[in-house]
């Protein structure tokens, strides 16, 4: 059977219509910070319905980790913040009406840079920070009232002091922070800009109310979080909200938590009819971005190359609304430590509000930013010590039984094999001339704690239906789940149906994120098959839970119930007159445990490498007074087929091992592998992307 994606037979959320539906368009703030003073609807065509901030303010605020967002903004906090919604029977009228609506604004001071937002006198993006009661606020949140910090996360290994509550300009205290035994210290500050996911399909949803029950059909990776957040916002029980998730035309983290669904639901309730709200491409750029971040790393080692201590600061720009930024800041914090042994580790990671579009989940969640910094610093240390960068890593990599900085003992560890594989791919010469080549290695956590449930129903003719909350965004999860179920049941894969998630039909699942689904659903399916066999009925139910989590004040606990492990290598050439960087080879190696579907696993990995190439070499959201410059695919480039010729990969499989997710592992190590390759040619890159202009600017010996 031909893949339905190739037959173009999938109906994505953007394709859906329902009889009688109206169309919603949004009116967006042109200012980074402004109070809406009035909304003039006098020019609007007849029959158009307008929803204003004051009408939805009584619903209160929502947010998956911090409750900081009204359905429509009476105070706009970024350029593009929706301040009104207009609905009409046809889309053209709704568009015209949105253009004709005139909103008045009182400008307010704005702050755009993550570190400026911490400095004295910075305007406060939000006056207070209320922790959300959503399931997605699953760890201790530490908002700092009276500041722009909506969460701070710390790691302190035994005996290290807590230090300042927050700082934009830290003063290292080497004695207190465990650097006494360090004979060599390197210290550098790095930056990664905001980027956009650029899923082929923009956000689109349909909302409808039936007898007091809210039904939303939308592309989302988080159906159960969406159900809960919408239920609380509209004062309903969870079961009075139904979320249906058709396959998405890509997401990469963009379709997580509540995006436009609350607005659509509010308009549908006001009209008492179904409404469709679908975004244009330019609106995608103000809907969700990847966190821009500044990361400073101080690494201490002995002259013999043993890592002694590491100090990490992350300033994470979450934009106008926290979204899952606190979680991103936490993961950025521990990913920046890297898969190495240390005597002492201290990390401070701050999730910081600014007046930029909100940032949230993005493939490589939190790790991309700090692995860029951390693995560049590993090479800076190798250069300082005059040793081979691969050897220096190998000397300090975690092995089975070692203790990570969180206190957890590592198991099923394969960092060294992955690093060696990557080095081989670029013909690394141990101790020899490796100019133009670079490597990187990293670890990335999986959502912990997390729960997954799955139902397995025997239907007619020996066929089975898997009821799973795992959503399909092109990653092939439905196929992987069908394959896993077929293997466990001992039937052909064509005998297994995996319908799209519908929260009225499928049991609870935490969400389809952090490369967890194949791993968690695989285990839940084992339980469900067992239950089906034992129960003697036509229905089996599987439920598994991973316990754990970190103390956010010390970073001690269980960061991840298992670790995504990856390495990358790159070989580059640079035109030292133009700064143009040519990729000769980009290779990524990831640990898969047991592979469920090799072709799908390789495609996932290839996708991660390609996204990493784009965000390493040229993708960057630039802003003019908070406004995205060029929110279209001519001004914002993503990689083309011609940019991907140098890609290769290894999937490290261990027979009989547990299944590891592979959706993101290959992304974070690629930028530092390329950066390290560039650095070996006499450059000192700290900021991404590595445009030719930036390459020239970081030449150590400018022409």
């Amino acid at each position: 059977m031909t893949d339905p994606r190739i037959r173009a037979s999938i109906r994505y959320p953007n394709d859906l219509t329902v009889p009688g539906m109206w169309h919603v368009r949004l009116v967006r703030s042109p200012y980074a910070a402004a109070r809406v003073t009035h909304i003039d609807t006098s020019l609007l065509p007849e029959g158009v319905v307008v929803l204003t901030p004051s009408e939805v303010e009584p619903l209160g605020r929502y947010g998956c980790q911090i409750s900081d967002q009204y359905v429509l903004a009476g105070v706009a906090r970024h350029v593009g913040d929706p301040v009104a919604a207009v609905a009409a029977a046809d889309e053209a009228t709704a568009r015209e009406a949105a253009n004709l609506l005139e909103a008045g604004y009182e400008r307010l001071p704005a702050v755009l840079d993550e570190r400026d937002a911490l400095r004295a006198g910075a305007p406060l993006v939000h006056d207070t920070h209320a922790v959300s009661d959503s399931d997605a606020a699953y760890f201790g949140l530490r908002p700092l009232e009276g500041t722009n910090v909506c969460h701070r996360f710390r790691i302190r290994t035994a005996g290290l002091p807590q230090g300042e509550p927050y700082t934009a300009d830290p003063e290292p205290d080497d004695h207190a922070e465990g650097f006494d035994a360090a004979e060599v210290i390197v210290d550098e500050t790095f930056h990664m800009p905001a980027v956009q996911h650029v899923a082929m399909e923009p956000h689109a949803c349909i909302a409808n109310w039936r007898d007091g029950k809210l039904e939303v059909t939308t592309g989302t990776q988080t159906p159960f979080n969406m159900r809960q957040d919408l239920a609380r916002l509209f004062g309903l029980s969870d079961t009075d909200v139904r979320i249906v998730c058709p396959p998405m035309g890509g997401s990469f983290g963009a379709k997580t938590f509540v995006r436009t669904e609350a607005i659509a639901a509010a308009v549908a309730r006001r009209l008492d009819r179904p409404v469709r709200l679908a975004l244009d491409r330019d609106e995608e750029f103000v809907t969700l971005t990847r966190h821009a971040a500044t990361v400073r790393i101080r690494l201490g080692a002995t002259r013999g190359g043993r890592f002694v201590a590491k100090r990490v600061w992350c300033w994470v720009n979450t934009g106008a609304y926290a979204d899952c930024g606190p979680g991103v800041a936490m993961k950025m914090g521990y990913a920046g430590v890297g898969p190495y042994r240390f005597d002492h580790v201290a990390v401070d990671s701050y999730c910081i509000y600014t007046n930029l579009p909100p940032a949230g989940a993005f493939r490589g969640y939190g790790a991309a930013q700090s692995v860029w910094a951390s693995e560049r610093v590993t090479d800076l240390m190798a250069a300082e010590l005059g040793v081979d960068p691969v050897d220096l890593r190998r000397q300090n990599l975690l092995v089975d039984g070692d203790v990570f900085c969180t206190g957890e003992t590592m198991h099923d560890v394969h960092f060294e094999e992955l690093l060696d594989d990557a080095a081989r791919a670029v013909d690394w010469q141990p101790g020899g001339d490796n100019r133009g080549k670079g490597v990187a290695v990293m670890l990335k956590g999986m959502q912990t704690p997390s729960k997954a449930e799955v139902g397995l129903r025997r239907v007619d003719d020996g066929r089975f239906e898997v009821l799973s909350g795992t959503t399909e965004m092109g990653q092939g999860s439905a196929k992987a789940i069908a394959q896993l179920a077929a293997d466990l049941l001992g039937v052909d894969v064509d005998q297994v149906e995996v319908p799209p998630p519908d929260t009225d039909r499928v049991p609870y699942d935490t969400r389809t994120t952090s490369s967890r689904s194949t791993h968690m659903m695989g285990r839940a399916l084992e339980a469900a098959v067992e239950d089906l066999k034992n129960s003697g009925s036509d229905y089996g139910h599987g439920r598994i839970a991973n316990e754990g989590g970190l103390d956010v004040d010390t970073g001690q606990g269980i960061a991840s119930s298992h670790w995504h492990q990856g390495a990358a290598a790159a070989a580059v050439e640079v035109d030292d007159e133009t700064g143009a960087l040519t990729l000769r080879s980009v290779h990524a190696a990831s640990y898969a445990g047991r592979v469920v579907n090799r072709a799908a696993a390789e495609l996932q990995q290839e996708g991660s490498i390609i996204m990493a190439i784009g965000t390493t070499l040229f993708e960057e959201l630039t802003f003019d007074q908070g406004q995205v410059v060029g929110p279209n695919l001519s001004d914002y480039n993503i990689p083309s087929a011609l940019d991907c010729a140098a890609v290769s990969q290894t999937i490290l499989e261990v027979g009989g091992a547990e299944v590891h997710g592979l959706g993101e592992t290959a992304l974070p190590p690629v930028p530092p592998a390329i950066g390290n390759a560039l650095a070996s040619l006499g450059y000192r890159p700290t900021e991404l992307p590595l445009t030719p202009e930036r390459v020239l600017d970081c030449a150590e010996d400018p022409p």
Partner: protein
Amino acid sequence: MTWMAPRTVAEAVQLKAEWPDATLVAGGTFVGILARQGLLASEDWISLQYVRELRELSTSSELALGAMVTHRRIELDPEISMGWPGVQQVFAAVASPRVRNAATIGGVLGDADYASDPPAMLVALDAWVEALSVRGLRRIPVADLILGHYQTSLEEDELITRVLVPRGRHHVTYRKLRTRSREDRPSVVAAASFHEGRVSVVVGAVAERPQFFPDLCATWKPGDSTSTREIAAGYADRIDPVSDNRGSAAYRTRMIAVEVRRALDSLAPAALTSQAAGR
């Protein structure tokens, strides 16, 4: 909204005379994007897609390309490769095959977008366009066609019907500096031709129109690196470049010097051979 689809050049010209504000649609890769983004709200449109005469291509004397000849056809035509290698190279360098399949030579010149590849090369090759209206035919050198950002010297009732490129330009080079994707538009272009003892270097994609300084080019001593560097420095000095997502003005100034020098260097062997033959 009125959508007009003439079948002949005569009809098209007549419609353009009657509807001078109508937007011409050729391949649609430019106006299509603008219209979708709401940046171009035109009430009336004249589509040239059914005008077969505009798709004619002739290599019998000079190269004559109908305005609706696509980039892809130019890229793949073996006679153009042989006789007009600069034309082939520059159209092959545009965007992706998907764009090149649709975009046309008349469209790219009519848009007068500073970031397009072909104009600089067509100026370096002494190409001209034929502009037709009910009032008659005009021949306009490409160098005089593009006046500024999205501005041409076409009258409102005129349309480009053909682009003509003289024979004999075999010593050419097209240097395209991309700073992002391999399908991106150029940050800096240096298009150069050496013909009958004369070199023409045209810098594109850096300012509102292609930049050509014949007085600097006339000082070139092939093979003399000082002369080459002085011309390159002169181009960098005289051009006031734009800043955009593909490079800052300061970066472009540096790159103009690099790319002009490299373009001249690549023509030097041919120029030296020609000089030796002339002696």
